[in-house]
């Protein structure tokens, strides 16, 4: 069973990840990202630059709930991959790739360029410890 262990910085939990198109399972080209682990998000998301890099087109739209009320946003189908070895951010190993998900396009952030929401975390065992270690286990 694949397991990923890494450490957070005390402010937020981010993890190296990969974003892949979902329209061809054999297409394993990926765009590397730093992803926020966001247990409060129903769906995973990617920043506009990632949408452009992978030339993703919207496939639908969905009502979302935000602090300022509800709004309609575009949805995208893509795959998320997670790296077993998170120590080498320059030459990462090939990621474990999850099935395609329906995610959102978020505004830019200086700290991360994607978020991993409950659509992915729900497929994993996730733990966090006082020594700042984090662990994800999945099938």
């Amino acid at each position, binding site marked *: 069973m694949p397991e990923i262990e890494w450490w957070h910085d005390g402010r937020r939990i981010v993890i190296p990840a990969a974003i892949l198109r979902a329209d061809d399972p054999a297409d394993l080209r990926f765009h590397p990202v730093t992803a926020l682990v966001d247990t409060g998000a129903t769906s995973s998301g990617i920043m506009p630059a990632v949408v452009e890099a992978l030339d993703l087109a919207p496939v639908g739209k969905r009502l979302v*709930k935000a602090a300022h009320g509800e709004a309609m946003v575009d949805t995208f*189908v893509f795959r998320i991959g997670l790296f077993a070895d998170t120590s080498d951010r320059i030459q990462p190993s090939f990621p474990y790739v999850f099935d395609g998900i*329906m995610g959102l396009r978020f505004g830019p952030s200086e700290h991360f360029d994607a978020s991993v929401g409950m659509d992915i975390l729900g497929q994993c065992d996730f733990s966090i410890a006082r020594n700042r270690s984090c662990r994800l286990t999945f099938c």
Partner: protein
Amino acid sequence: MTSIRSEIDANFDAFQRQLHASLTSHRGEFALLRHGQIIDFFEFPGAALIAGKERFPDALFSIQEVNDEPIDLGVWSHA
């Protein structure tokens, strides 16, 4: 010529009108739509996307999750 944007919008309107009936037997699945019609339901969005690309080379289709609850944005709720 129909654009993907107008196709998504038209399909969404049609999907919303049928959503209550679809929830009964397809909640949590993903509907593939074209020209205001639900073509098929899929367990996973990736499968719906691949089927859409195969069936409709003009890419005029959309995918909607059969769900009537809004998405929580997590940290982006406050952006």
